[in-house]
């Protein structure tokens, strides 16, 4: 059995402007120790999916349907107090902006100690020792002093290391990293990704890496889910998605990636992601898709396997998709 299984997850928010369908039928699995990359633009529902796993979308105006199974236990139907025991202990999360995600008025050490004591009945002293160890493990220099630092006294990279230390201090089975490098300097981004990968190897943690940057995924992920407008439009192993992308949206993402098409013009995807209040009928990507044809505006394409372990949701004939996808790869190889 997979460690984490999400089945037909649907998350809707009632807002003043209408119903936002943030996640619209997402299914995915994550095995122990593996890394799943979820890629998509802002508003594709990737963060809401992650927050829902943590039970952080239990809001008065939210409707959540489907199942989120952790070792077979449905987190969506767990009473609040049982869910609390899982948060941070078995599933931990690292957010995008470490400055706003750390409490500005509490010292770093206290915030980590608190995370430990929320789940384990140990003394302040013992918890501090573990917090210190966690800071050391994420490579923070002079961790003894940093325990007494306030978040604003640290640099962006150090803050994110603190967040990672806080998330991993209880050795969770799953680490969700929601755009963990987006708010950081480019020079620090690689370090942080490296750190996550390294800790994952040592602890055997399964990682869900959420990003808008295919480059980030290419470094670390085993499997990739490409999300668009609250749905998964392509899924597969990292190699199969990078080498033989099958969905026009994935093609667009690859062509707008600087590293992948070195020496050639970048091709940004035209248009912008749809409003999740009024998602286009049929394939939600069709208004931006250069290959759209008659059924695209009417029929929602289901996610269908083209080969074992590789699936896409697109009406184009399989041969066309393969041809264009391989063309992209040779384009990259030539560059």
């Amino acid at each position, binding site marked *: 059995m997979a460690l984490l299984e999400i089945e037909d997850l649907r998350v809707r928010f009632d807002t003043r402007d209408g119903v936002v369908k943030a996640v619209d039928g997402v299914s995915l699995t994550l095995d122990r120790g593996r890394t799943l990359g979820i890629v998509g633009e802002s508003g594709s529902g990737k963060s809401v999916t992650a927050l829902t796993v943590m039970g952080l979308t239990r809001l008065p105006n939210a409707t959540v349907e489907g199942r989120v199974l952790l070792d077979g236990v449905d987190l969506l139907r767990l009473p609040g107090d049982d869910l609390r025991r899982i948060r941070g202990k078995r599933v931990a999360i690292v957010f995008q902006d470490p400055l706003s995600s750390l409490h500005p*008025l509490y010292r770093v050490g206290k915030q980590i100690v608190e995370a430990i004591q929320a789940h384990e009945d140990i003394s302040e002293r013992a918890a501090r020792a573990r917090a210190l160890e966690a800071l050391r493990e994420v490579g923070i220099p002079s961790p003894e002093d940093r325990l007494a630092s306030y978040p604003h006294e640290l640099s962006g990279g150090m803050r994110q290391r603190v967040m990672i230390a806080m998330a991993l201090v209880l050795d969770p089975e799953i680490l969700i990293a929601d755009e963990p490098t987006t708010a950081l300097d480019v020079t620090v981004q690689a370090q942080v990704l490296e750190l996550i990968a390294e800790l994952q190897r040592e602890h055997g943690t399964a990682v869900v890496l959420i990003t808008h940057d295919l480059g980030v995924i290419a470094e670390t992920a085993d499997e990739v889910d490409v999300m668009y407008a609250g749905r998964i439009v392509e899924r597969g192993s990292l190699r199969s998605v990078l080498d033989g992308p099958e969905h026009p949206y994935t093609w667009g993402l690859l062509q707008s990636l600087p590293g992948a098409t070195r020496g050639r013009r970048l091709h940004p995807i035209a248009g912008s992601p749809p409003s999740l209040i009024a998602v286009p009928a049929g394939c939600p990507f069709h208004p931006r898709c250069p290959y759209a044809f008659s059924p695209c505006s009417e029929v929602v394409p289901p996610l269908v396997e083209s080969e074992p372990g590789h699936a896409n949701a697109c009406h184009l004939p399989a041969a066309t998709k393969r041809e264009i996808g391989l063309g992209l790869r040779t384009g990259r190889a030539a560059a």
Partner: protein
Amino acid sequence: MATRPATDPPVPRVAPARDGGPPLTAPGALAAAASSSLLRYVLRRILWGAFILLIVTALTFVIFYAFPSADPAALRAGRSATPQLIAEIRQSLGLDKPLYVQYWRFLKGLVLHFDLGYSYQNQTSVRSELFARLPATISLTAGAFVVWMLVAIPVGIVSAVRRRSLVDRAVMGGALVAISAPVYWLGLLALFLFSNDIGVVPLLPGAGSYTPFTVDPWRWFTSLLLPWFVLAAAFAAFYARMVRGNVLEVLGEDYIRTARAKGLPERDVVFRHALRSALTPIVTIAGLDIGILLGGAILTETVFNIPGVGRYAYDSIVNADLPAIQGTVLFGAVFIVTANIVVDVLYAFLDPRVRY
């Protein structure tokens, strides 16, 4: 009085995040440097406060002594005074001297002896009058403060956590009424309802029953209950709305999401994480309000006939008793300036991001 302070609450200067890695100095040296810079900050604030008070003295002096609308000598001489008497008084008080000489003498007496002059009404020292009345005003302010905070904080929290519930709507509606009700109306209402002389339900001592704590603590307490609640009503309502707003705002912060994601019980999320941030700005505003009230809660003291600084101010105004009015104004200014300094320093302790 339920008016907002004219001065804005201090906006903390938040230090921008340094992105240059951890500080290079040893923590001990850092702490020492911090405490000495804090000391400099406090001194700077005190000097600035003294300067403000100087301006207040100058303004009150000019208004009361230089404007022709009120001739101090004539006021002092009383209604049926001969021009000769007025001239004599003018001379004996030094009012015939140039203005800057008068101001200098006034300032010298004020700074050296805290001399606020003598009341025109009964020749008593304004300073002794004010100090004699201060305990009543402090009693009123302190009690009302306790009442309004004890009401506002729980109500604000419940309202925020149960936003849009029936409780929230009812309480916030009530708050609006309490804010809108003037003290002189609410005070009279309270007296007509509960005072033991004219009240429908004679429960508590009414107007003019104030007894100093040193004389009879129990009577002190009961005589102040009605004034405390009346004075606290508008403040409680205002603060409850403020607490509610702040808690709601903080509950939407990313670090609250982090606290939940860590698996903290909701109780800790609200009381330890949200409240810590939500109450910090309220402390500063409360400090200023206390400062203002210590300068005299004029309406409440007048309605309940409490012999405090505010009542003295009211009587002085009614009698056009210039030195007494000037004294109460300066007295109030001292409290407000002091409260400002205390609040700024307190904030530096409460929020580590404040740079001073």
